[in-house]
């Protein structure tokens, strides 16, 4: 499903990803943890090609981009559509209602008919529990509601993989649960997901695998129960002690 091979990313002098290899099977949920600055966001952004990797290759479904040679600009938008991105700061379009936010991609990019898209967008918003907030502008919604619109907006493009970058870390504690619930439902429906989060409960309940990143490397990976109870690497132990 997803196969990342030898992924490097360098910003000027700073090497942020130092050879990431990762396979994710269809329908699996992978949780990525690690200290701040370890390259988690950069990894997700590379999968969505918001950053262009310095070298390495990414394969999703049956499409491959190899960054060791130069990648044509034309190849990027279709590749990007394989993944849906949920941002830490939601990044909703402030001049559009919840419904318009969700409809934007299918209408502008896929050129689908407005009526069909509206129906689908209403269904998606109902699914994330916002069926009664269709015509609200982002500023009229709480952080948790905004983030759920963000998830619906990404789902509207029917991606093969959903990427979540600390989707709840900007939220007040009482709003975290509603977003995690939507994500769990999605996982139960069989969506392939890569989730950067420090919500250990979500990792325990929903993840098939937990990956610990540090300094641009994948240091350790394993089933959540093994990772949290008996991590092998010293750095993983230290990190888990810090956040628990």
């Amino acid at each position: 499903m997803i196969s990342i091979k030898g992924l490097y990313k360098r910003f000027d002098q700073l090497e942020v990803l130092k050879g990431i290899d990762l396979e994710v099977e269809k329908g699996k949920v992978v949780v990525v943890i690690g200290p701040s600055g370890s390259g988690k966001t950069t990894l997700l952004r590379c999968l969505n090609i918001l950053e262009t990797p310095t070298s390495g290759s990414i394969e999703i479904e049956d499409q491959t981009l190899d960054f060791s040679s130069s990648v044509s600009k034309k190849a990027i938008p279709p590749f990007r559509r394989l993944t849906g991105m949920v941002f830490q700061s939601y990044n909703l379009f402030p001049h559009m209602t919840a419904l318009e936010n969700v409809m934007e991609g299918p209408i502008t990019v896929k050129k689908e008919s407005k009526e069909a898209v509206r129906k689908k967008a209403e269904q998606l918003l109902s699914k994330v529990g916002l069926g009664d907030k269709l015509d609200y502008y982002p500023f009229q919604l709480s952080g948790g509601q905004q983030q759920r619109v963000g998830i619906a907006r990404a789902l509207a493009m029917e991606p093969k993989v959903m990427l979540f970058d600390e989707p709840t870390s900007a939220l007040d504690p009482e709003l975290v649960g509603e977003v995690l619930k939507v994500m769990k439902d999605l996982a139960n429906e069989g969506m392939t997901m890569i989730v950067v989060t420090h919500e250990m409960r979500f990792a325990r309940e929903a993840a098939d695998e937990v990956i610990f990143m540090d300094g641009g490397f994948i240091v350790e990976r394993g089933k959540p129960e093994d990772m949290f109870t008996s991590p092998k690497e010293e750095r993983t132990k230290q990190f888990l002690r810090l956040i628990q």
Partner: protein
Amino acid sequence: MKMFLNSIIADPERVSRLIDIAQSSLQPLLKGAILYTIPLTLITFVCGLILAVLTALARISSVKPLQIIARIYVSAIRGTPLLVQLFIIFYGLPTIGVVIDPFPSAVIGFSLNVGAYASEIIRAAILSIPKGQWEAGYSIGMSYPQTLKRIILPQASRVSLPPLSNTFISLVKDTSLAAMILVTEMFRRAQEIAATNYEFLLLYLEVALIYWVICFILSIVQGRLEKRMDRFVS
């Protein structure tokens, strides 16, 4: 001022003459406004805005030659007086065989001017939109032009509305410079009428009052527009 008032009050005949002139000149002045001042302002503003958006996009593009051309254009227009620019177009170009009528000359001159000034406003507005908005557009598969058109420009236009309204109001007043290149807009008509009856103060005050009324109405419209566009931010 006191002398002027005294001379009027002491002379009832002059008072009725002044009232006559003020009344009879109102129609040709308003005609000048409706036929020339207002159309010149509107046409120029639309052309200028298109030029401004293109220039702003050139300046933020990654294509070096485009950047440089846009910079030189903005610098040249901002660094030279508007009146000189109008003279170059209307009185200067004919010496190399390019003859343009007064009204189109004014449209060209003012459009180039608005284009340069407004491009700075629009560029700043585009740059003020958070990077996350571009990325959100890209992440749902939108291209650069799609993201620009659907996501960035609508938000940038809200940011740039107040300064652009100011540009527009300035433009209304600046069109009086077109009098210098023989466009028979409102100010030129005031000059022509005053030249026949020598009531310069009266006519220039009258024309000033009309400009003021137009700008006052525009500033009310501006306030309304800003309120409407604020509906999607708290």
